[in-house]
Each structure stands twice: as structure tokens, then as C-alpha cells.
């Protein structure tokens, strides 16, 4: 997103905004006001000042209690809402058995407590999937983790060889909740997986 | 599994409902030559009248055997009041006016009734749940539920009562006379205004019966339900020969069965997949209407030439 934007500091737009509010916005209106101000007769100025002062005090008094409202600590996010998978590519050794393939993914957790993941399945009942070397692994927020998922074909019958949008079933666990979640992939993973399935179940046609 | 009996049953049930509403169109037309386009909305208000009885008047948990007759009465009262009110305040002042004026009034009244219900009936702008009669029975390969039985019984009873009333009773014969020639009938001492009010009231009551059956069958009602049902019922009335009460019922049944069978079987005919299915059922129903009107412009049972229409 920032790539297409105007010349901007590297900051995210979030932090940029709060700066703008304080620093950049204010000068213009004040300049204008100053012009008008000096055009006013002295008595009016005093009266206006007094009125403004009253207004400011009134506003302050009325708004003050709102400021120290208790900021509840934000509860931990649900794991499915902060976890993202990105497909990197197949693991190279092609001489692994034809009925199984290994794929690399980058898993990131956006914020909150660490999330423990367990890959429990893939697109079809005829496929088994597990993460290597351990079936479950933990990802901490801010530090993406690369993992390998092995997908093996247990039986070919009824197995769709060209699924458009294959997915991985993953159980996500953090201090907030345990969720069953599907990560759906398009493009590269779809092609690579379908290559594996062709090799395993329809070797003649490939 | 042979689905024909079930599909026929579906069609006859739908057709009975069309027929009940079509009576209202046909009676009013037969006597005053007015197409009361607000009749669909009278049907709708009948449904809301019945709902009011069930939800706001009867205590919770009233047995349906008690509730249904009371709902019929409540819905009937509302529908009759609105039908008669429409006649008295919207149509009667226009009786001598050109034919287009009452027709446009009817359309305006129809919109007004819809908006009144939508705005003033609680939560009427979306489907409101209606108590259902959902117990099902298997008769051979046909599955029907209590609401369907209610509909069939109601249609038969109403139809027979109406036939008896029109043929045998004094008022009924006065009605026939008015339909034949209002001016002469008046000269013979018939209070035609009273006859017209009675025609509207009977139409309204039949619509309310159909509305209760509708609610019991489909389980919910909304303020727009009258539009499509009214249109279909009007079609049924024309199909059967507008002005003829038996024609209205027959037209309803033919329309319902035609619609159902078209939607059930046409896409099974090779080469016709694109023209079949539920989505095309209205097209076939109206194609049938056009065909019938081409061959018999007066409708299936219509006798009189449409000299005054």
C-alpha cells in the first residue's frame, strides 16, 4: 500500500495521523484568525477574550471527568483473527515418495499472546497433513516462523486432482480460545498440490 | 417415485387459494364491472386481522382448534370492513364516472393499504410469523399437512355455501338479477346498493379465508403478500370467465395445476431445460391464459359476451 502512496515517512499511516493532528493542521487557521483579530476594535477583543476564556473553562470542566475513564486492558485477540499464512513454495527433494509432498509456509501472528498451531488436515478426506518436525508449533507475535507441512495421499478415490482453492485445517490455540480454522490458498499452492496429486493418483496422465 | 400425484396435489392446493381470492374479483366485476385491484390487499389485511387475533387478543397457548375459527372471524371482520369501506368511500362516489377513474382509484387504494400496513402494523415490513398447522399426513405417495386439509375443506365449504346462497336465497337471486341488468333490477325494486355491498363483503370474507389458509400453510405473512396473489387470482378469474363464480374457482384450480406441473415437468422434456423450473412457472401460466383467451375470449365458463367491459 505505501508503495503507491505519496512521499511519506516510513511510519505507518496510523502514527502519521496522530502527528498530523498536532503539528501540521494548526498553523493555517491561526493565521487567519490573527488577521481578523487585529481588525477588531480593542473593546471587542477584550470581550471576546473573556468569552473565550469562559468557554474554555466551561469546556474543560465539563469534559474533564471523561478523561480519566478507566481504560480496560484490551483482551487477547482470538487466534484466527491474528494468524496469517503465506505459501513460500515446495521443498525441493523430488525423490521423496510420490504419494507425499512437503510445502513451506511462513506463519505470522499479528498481535496478542503467542499462538500454538496444529495442522490437522487438508482439502480432502483422502489427504493427510502434518507439520514437520513437530505436529504443533508456536508462533510469537512479530516474529514470522517458517514451517514445513507434509501432505500425503492416503487414498486416491474421490480425490479431486484439480482443486482450485485447496485449504489446510489448522487448530489455533492461544490464551483466549481454541479455534478450528481453514487457511485457503490459491495460485502457487494450488498448482503445486495438484502436481503432487497427479503424480500420486494419475501417474500416467502427467 | 412417481411424483405426479404429489405435484397434482400441490397444484390443486395452490389453485384452491387462487380460486378463493378470485371469487372476490369475479363477483365485484359481475355486478359493477369494476376490476377491484385492491382486492389483493384486502386479502393481505385479512391475514393481518387474523394475526392480530392470534397474537394480541387470544391468550398465549390457545389451542389451534379454538384459535383458527376465531382467526377466521377476526380476519373476516377486518377484510369485510375494508372491502365495504372501499366500496362506500372510494368506488361508490365514482359510480357514474368513466371506467378508468375507479380502476385508478383501485390501484391507489391498493398502494395505500400496503403502506398503511407497512408503517403502522408492528414489524410488518418484514415477514411476520403466523401460527402454522404443520402436522403432516402421508396418503399413498402424497404428503399433505393440516393446513392443506384446512384449505381444501374451507374452499369446498365456501364454494358450496356461495352456490347455495346465490341460487336459492332471495338476496342471491337479487344479486343475479343485478348482474344481468342493474337498471332493470333497480326498477323491479331491488336495492342495488345493498347488493353491491354484499358482493364486496362476500369477496372480502373469501379473501380472509384464503388469507388464513395462506398463513397456516406458509407460516408467515408480510405486507406485500397481496400483490402477487391478487394478480394470480385476477388471472384465474379471467381464465375461468370473469363474472362467473364457478369459473373463478375452476380458473384458480387450472392455473394452480398448470403452474405446478410446468415447474415440475417442463425441464424434464429434452431440449426444454432452459424453459423449465420454478422460475418459469409464471411464464407458462400466462401462456396458458393467452391460449385460452385466444380460443375462448370469454374464459372457460364465461357465457356473456364482454359487451359492457
Amino acid at each position, binding site marked *: *500500500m505505501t508503495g*503507491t502512496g505519496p512521499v511519506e515517512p516510513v511510519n505507518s*499511516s*496510523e502514527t502519521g495521523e496522530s502527528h*498530523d*493532528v498536532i503539528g*501540521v*493542521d494548526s498553523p*493555517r*487557521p491561526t493565521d*487567519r*484568525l490573527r488577521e481578523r483579530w487585529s481588525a477588531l476594535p480593542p473593546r471587542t477583543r477584550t*470581550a*471576546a477574550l473573556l*468569552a*473565550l476564556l*469562559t*468557554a474554555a473553562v*466551561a*469546556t474543560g470542566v*465539563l469534559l474533564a471527568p471523561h478523561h480519566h475513564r478507566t481504560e480496560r486492558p484490551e*483482551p487477547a*485477540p*482470538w487466534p*484466527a*483473527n491474528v*494468524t496469517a499464512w503465506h*505459501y513460500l513454495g515446495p521443498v525441493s527433494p523430488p525423490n521423496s515418495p510420490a504419494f507425499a509432498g512437503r510445502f513451506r509456509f511462513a506463519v505470522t501472528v499479528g498481535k496478542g499472546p503467542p499462538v500454538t498451531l496444529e495442522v490437522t488436515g487438508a482439502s*480432502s478426506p483422502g489427504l493427510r497433513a502434518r507439520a514437520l518436525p513437530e505436529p504443533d508449533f508456536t508462533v510469537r507475535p512479530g516474529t514470522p516462523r517458517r514451517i514445513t507441512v507434509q501432505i500425503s495421499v492416503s487414498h486416491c478415490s*474421490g*480425490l479431486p486432482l*484439480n*482443486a482450485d*482453492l485447496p*485449504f489446510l485445517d489448522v487448530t489455533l490455540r492461544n490464551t483466549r480460545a481454541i479455534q478450528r*480454522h481453514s487457511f*485457503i490458498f490459491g495460485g*502457487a499452492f494450488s498448482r503445486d498440490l495438484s502436481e503432487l496429486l497427479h503424480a500420486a493418483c494419475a501417474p500416467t496422465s502427467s | *417415485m412417481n*411424483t405426479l400425484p404429489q*405435484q397434482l396435489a*400441490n397444484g390443486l*392446493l395452490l389453485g384452491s387459494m387462487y380460486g378463493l381470492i378470485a371469487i372476490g374479483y369475479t363477483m365485484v366485476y359481475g355486478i359493477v364491472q369494476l376490476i377491484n385491484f385492491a382486492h389483493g390487499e384486502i386479502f393481505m389485511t385479512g391475514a393481518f386481522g387474523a394475526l392480530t387475533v392470534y397474537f394480541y387478543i387470544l391468550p398465549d397457548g390457545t389451542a389451534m382448534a379454538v384459535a383458527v375459527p376465531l382467526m377466521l372471524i377476526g380476519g373476516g371482520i377486518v377484510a369485510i370492513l375494508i372491502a365495504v369501506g372501499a366500496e362506500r368511500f372510494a368506488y361508490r362516489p365514482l359510480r357514474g364516472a368513466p371506467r378508468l377513474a375507479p380502476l385508478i382509484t383501485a390501484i391507489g387504494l391498493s398502494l395505500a393499504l400496503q403502506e398503511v400496513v407497512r408503517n403502522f402494523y408492528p414489524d410488518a*415490513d*418484514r415477514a411476520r*410469523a403466523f401460527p402454522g398447522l404443520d402436522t*403432516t399426513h402421508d396418503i399413498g405417495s402424497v404428503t399433505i*399437512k393440516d393446513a392443506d386439509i384446512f384449505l381444501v375443506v374451507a374452499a369446498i365449504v365456501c364454494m358450496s355455501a356461495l352456490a347455495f346462497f346465490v341460487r336459492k336465497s332471495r338476496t342471491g337471486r337479487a344479486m343475479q338479477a343485478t348482474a344481468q341488468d342493474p337498471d332493470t333490477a333497480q326498477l323491479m325494486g331491488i336495492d342495488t346498493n345493498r347488493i353491491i355491498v354484499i358482493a364486496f363483503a362476500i369477496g372480502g370474507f373469501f379473501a380472509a379465508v384464503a388469507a388464513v389458509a395462506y398463513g397456516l400453510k406458509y*407460516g*408467515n405473512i*408480510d405486507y406485500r*403478500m397481496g400483490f402477487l*396473489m391478487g394478480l394470480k387470482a385476477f388471472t384465474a378469474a379471467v381464465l375461468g370467465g370473469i363474472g362467473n363464480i364457478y369459473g373463478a374457482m375452476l380458473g384458480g384450480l387450472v392455473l394452480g395445476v398448470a*403452474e405446478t406441473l410446468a*415447474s*415440475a415437468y417442463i425441464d424434464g422434456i429434452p431440449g426444454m431445460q432452459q424453459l423449465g*423450473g*420454478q*422460475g418459469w*412457472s409464471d411464464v407458462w401460466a400466462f401462456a396458458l391464459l393467452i391460449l385460452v383467451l385466444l380460443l375462448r375470449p370469454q374464459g372457460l365458463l364465461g357465457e356473456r359476451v364482454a359487451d359492457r367491459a
Partner: protein
Amino acid sequence: MRRSMVILTSVLATGALTLTACGSRDDNGGGDSGDNGDSKTLTIGVDAPLSGENSTTGLGIQYGAQIAVDDANKNKLVPGVTFKLKALDDKAQPATGQSNATSITGDKTAVGAVGPLNSGVAQTMQQVFASANMVQISPANTNPELTQGKNWQTDKKRPYKTYFRTATTDELQGSFAAGYAYNKLKKKKVFVVDDKQTYGAGLAKIFAEQFKKVGGKVVQTDHVNTGTKDFGSLVTKIKNSGADLLYYGGQYDESALITKQLKDAGVKIPLFGGDGMFASTYIEAAGASSEGDLVTAIGVPADTLPAAKTFIETYKAKGYKGDYGAYGAYAYDATTAIIKAVKAAVDANDGKVPSDINALRSTVVDEVQKSDFEGLTGKVAFDQYGDTTNKQLTVYQVEKGEWKAVETGTAELN
């Protein structure tokens, strides 16, 4: 001289009192030309079905946007600008949507629009907003064509650069539903019905294709007319087809009737639908017959989003009608994206609202494209087609008369 002073003082005092009195209230009626000489009211249009069909979810969009506007005004997100909502009812009809779009673009204070609900309505609105160069963000449209062009399957091409959406597409929704139906529900034979509308027909088609692809069988398809109440003939066909699942592409108005008539006829197979069916009204209208029925909906359940908690509380506290569950939070984020874009435009213009509304609208379109912030529903950002980058879906099932999330999914396409 003295009189003018008295007037000035009283004006200022009144202004000050009004401001303090209004304090946390949303719009303080523009105010007088006192010290904030630049105060300006900008309008954000909302178009959704607010009465009749689909209005439960449509009202959720309206009030979701309303809360976003209230929050922005309360927090003075854009100094010197008060936002106002202009909600128009499209009755789920394309022609009405188009005239509403014209009315919004004709409003000289309007900077952008949120909506509509129905993809078919969106098709007629896109052109109007494109000619006015005004941004339109739909929280609910899922038809792929809207952002990726007619040939989205083979050759993606964005038709209108002013159109964005915070909802994901039916390509994903249909595939997710097909995968869930086949793998998790173990359903092999599906009967597919749609309502012939842009959204429903598109979704049903994608579902049918994907269901076949994963290995299932589509035993029969049928189409219904919106507004139909009697589905007796359809139900008999379904019963006779031996299907173990009914998939419906369309809205809750018809599907609630279909599921009721289906179960009443003794066909105990679940009905599975898309986000158009995800509304409390579906369960209310179908009653116990809806038990076990499923939908896919965009996003994750609102109650798992910590940021949405205040939103839901506000929605309930204000007693707003409609159902925020399906798109309320997405409408909030869509509205916030427009507000933030206005802010960026104002900032780029030395803190002043550009006086030329057309220039402002055009800048807002560019800024919405660059959106990148944490919304209620997660990260709000748009890809090169105007689609959200936050592609999440949830399968809900009716359990004891309530929608319950049974499975969630995130897509990462590429």
C-alpha cells in the same frame, strides 16, 4: 460599536454553551461562523434495502455506517468537518439503487457512498459513481464481476476504479461452502437452487462448479422467482431427486419459506446458503424448520472481534433496528475508510477541506485505494481490483434457534 460588541459576545457565549452542551452529541447543526471558520458538513451516502425484502441486513448496514459517522464526529477525526449520513432505501431493486446513486452524486456535499447490499443493485450504481468520480464501498456485495470484470475467471480486469468492497467474493465463498459441504458434512449429492438475481445465480453457479470439482454430484438445478411463496412443486422435485443437501443462492426471504416447506414435506436435508441468508429473520421466519441449516458468511463472527465489542454495545444501546451480524461491522469499516480518506485529502490540502467538491471526491477515491488501517473486522486495505485484502469466511449453522459459528477460514490467494 457597543451594540456590535454585545452581539459578538452573546454569539460567542451562545456558541460556547452550545458546544459544551452538545459535548458528546453527534451533530451540532453546523454551528455559527464563530471561531472555527472552516467547519463544513460533508455527506456520506448509504444505499441499502431499508424496507421490505432484505431489510433486516440492509438496516444493519445503515446503522453500522451511522455509528461510524457518530464516532468520527465525536472524536473529531477530521478537524473542521462534520459528517452527515444520508441513508436511501433501494428496496433491493436495481432501478431504485441507480436513482439513489444519482441523488447521492448530485448532492454537492457528498464525498462517498456505502452500499448497496445486493450485487444486482450494485451493477446499476457503479457507472453512476464512476462518472461522478465518487467512491463507493460496499460492505456486502460478493459477486466477483463487480471488481474483476465479466471474465473474472480467465482475465481479471477492474471495471470501475471508484468501486470498492469490504466483503470478500463469491469465488471464495462458493468454494469454501463446497469444500465444507463435501469434506466436513460428507454430503455427496446436492440440489442447487438460485433466485436468478446477480448475487444468487452467481453464487449458486460457483458453488455447483466447485462442488463437482471436489468430487460431489449436482443432481439437479432449479431457479425460483423472488417474491414467490409457494414452493410445493420445487419441494416435491427435491424430495424425488434423492439429494442429501439443498444449496440455495439467494436471500433469506425465499430460502426461509423453502426450508420450511421442505421440512414440512418430510424432506429432512439441510439447506445451505450464502451470506444473503445470514440474518436472524431467516430463523424467525422458518422457525424450527431452520434447525441444522447452514450459511457461509463473510468475515469472522463479530463477537470474536475485540474491537467490535463497543460497536455491538452501541448498536444495542441505541436500539437500532435490523441485524448487525452480517454486515454491520463491515459497513462501519467501509464508512471509516471514506472518513479517513477525507482526512488524508484535507491533510494534503494544508488542513483545509478542498473547496472544489469534485477535486475532493477524486482525491478520496485515491486515498481509499491506499487505505491501510485496523478496522473492527481486521485490517482494512484494498487490492488492485478494489477487493478487500482481508479474506475471511465463517460457516454458521442454526443450533437451538441461533446462528452458531462452526468453522472459520482465511484465504491467502497467490
